[in-house]
């Protein structure tokens, strides 16, 4: 699927993951227009993956974004919902993944039921932690895996070594997607229930900051999703990525200047800046939380980068 230039070594790809947060249709349109025109990313994942209730509000904007990105030469992959909760969610998922003409990222095992052996990307919200599980998905058509964010680099490399035919994309920038729930914490915080939520999750462009009673930054709430407050960064030099068998880095959209974030990562992948240079550039862009990277070494994910 990846188009490799003739000259070796293969060019490391940059991907933009699906937008987790509830931005307005206008914000979505503006964001992806700029990504299409300016961001040095090779592929873009588009779709509502967190809450099916948002879909009617953003579906058209996302569809237009997909067209715009395709016209700009980006590889567009449609991301499925991560926790389909009702008939509407299930029907939307079935409609999306059954369409063999689209590239699809699967974020819930149920989506595989409708994919019927067509190629797909396994997203980081699926529990694929080892080579045997990855192999099972390949039997179903999986071509690329973005492993769970809590996996250590060493373990990601162990998968890549043992199933070399599988493309590996590493979650490399963004608040870490830590948990999904049936309960909406944005609604709970506002004294509402999920079924009558008034879409209060649209107040927080990068999620609602959650601190400890001591004021220490800890988590970020995005409706039924909980993310880290810290911004996970994989500042891994290209030589090490190639060594590990990782072919692409994934950047997760936030409200800071994502074009600049993508440019910084492109500079890292092209050896124009080193890991320290990347971290300095990202810090200067005013990320929503402190840069963290503990997961890469098997340490607590909250450990500073």
């Amino acid at each position, binding site marked *: 699927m990846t188009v490799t230039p003739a000259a070796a070594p293969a060019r490391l790809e940059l991907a933009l993951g699906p937008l987790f947060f509830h931005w307005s249709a206008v914000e979505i349109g503006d964001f992806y227009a700029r990504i299409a025109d300016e961001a040095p990313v090779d592929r873009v994942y588009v779709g509502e993956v967190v809450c099916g209730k948002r879909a009617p509000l953003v579906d058209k904007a996302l569809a237009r974004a997909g067209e715009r990105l395709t016209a700009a030469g980006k590889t567009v992959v449609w991301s499925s919902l991560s*926790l389909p909760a009702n008939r509407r969610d299930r029907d939307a998922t079935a409609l999306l993944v059954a369409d063999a003409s689209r590239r699809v990222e699967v974020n819930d*095992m149920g989506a595989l*039921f409708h994919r019927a052996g067509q190629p797909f990307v396994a997203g980081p919200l699926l*529990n694929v932690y080892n080579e045997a599980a990855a192999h099972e998905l390949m039997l179903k058509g999986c071509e690329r895996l973005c492993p*769970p964010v*809590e996996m250590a680099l060493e373990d990601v490399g162990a998968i890549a070594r043992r199933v070399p035919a599988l493309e590996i994309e590493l979650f490399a920038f963004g608040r870490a997607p830590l948990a999904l729930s049936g309960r*909406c*914490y944005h609604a709970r915080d506002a004294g509402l229930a999920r079924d009558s939520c008034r879409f209060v999750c649209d107040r927080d462009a990068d999620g609602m900051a959650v601190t400890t009673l001591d004021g220490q930054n800890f988590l970020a*709430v995005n409706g039924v999703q909980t993310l880290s407050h810290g911004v996970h960064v994989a500042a891994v030099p290209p030589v090490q990525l190639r060594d590990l068998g990782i072919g692409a880095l994934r950047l997760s959209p936030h409200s800071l200047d994502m074009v600049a974030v993508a440019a910084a990562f492109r500079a890292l992948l092209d050896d124009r800046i080193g890991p320290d240079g990347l971290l300095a550039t990202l810090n200067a862009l005013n990320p929503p939380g402190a840069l963290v990277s503990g997961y890469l070494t098997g340490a607590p994910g909250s450990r500073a980068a």
Partner: protein
Amino acid sequence: MKSGKPGSIELICPAGSPAMLRAAVEAGADGVYCGLADSTNARNFPGLNFSPRELTDSVAWAHARGAKVLVAVNTFARAGEVDTWRASADAAAAAGADAIIAADLAVLAHVHAKHPGTRLHLSVQAAASSPESIRFYAQTYGVKRVVLPRVLSVEEIAALTAEIDVETEAFGFGGLCVMAEGRCMLSSYATGKSPNLSGVCSPPSAVAYVEEPGGMAVKVGGFTVDRYHEGESAGYPTLCKGRFEAHGTAGYLFEDPVSLNAMSMLVALSKAGVTAVKIEGRQRGKAYVAQVTAAFRAAIDAMDRGQDPARFAERLMSLSEGGRQTDGAYRKTWR
């Protein structure tokens, strides 16, 4: 002791040790679930769980009394170390387990291929909450029963069971994950250890109690999760049950420190087509399991006689952490 009537809901109880297994069976459990003493199961606590020899002996003991033994191999295998998880599944099959409870595709594929005579139950850690998800596991790996994630209301469970040909098992009592099980990494973010990878959540080794003027702060992995005045009772500091601040207001952001008691929902769960009700708490000991099992046995038997099982619920009040209980997601308003 057991009703044994067709249509009656099965009672599945936790066994963190051989002694706890015997206590559960003697108190009326139709089946018990347990794990081997390593990171291949989701209650990987020091001093808990079974050696292969203990498992073999316990299965024989339980079978002699008409009870089933379900063995959990329900964490996700570490890359490059899948054989350890396969070995646990092999040990469970060799011990004569009635079913293996698994979530990882690696373990499901192994059991399906190598132990076709052993039933596969889909662990709650797989968080299979839709008919499509359950059909995927049933068609690919021959899964016979799914343990339902604690995100579904009773109405949704009824709709679900009508759409699938697989048995369902629903949690009835004990600790309550507010996140979809198997899809939560809060613990590894704070401590480096998570349910999926290590079989532990908010592990004791990461918990610190810090004395303060007039009270105490409880920290997990260095993050303060709650603060108590002197004399105030403190439950186990699970991260999602802590007090945090958002938009300047402090409170139980994710869930109050309550635990699940769905005894009053037994009739509804049974009518929804649920095959078995499961009690959480392999870490809680034999006195606990004996009391909870006896109460649920009495409630199920009362239900089978056409009586209201709800009156047995108060026998369980003192057994919940902090004494506070909830129906959880079984009522839609929980969301």
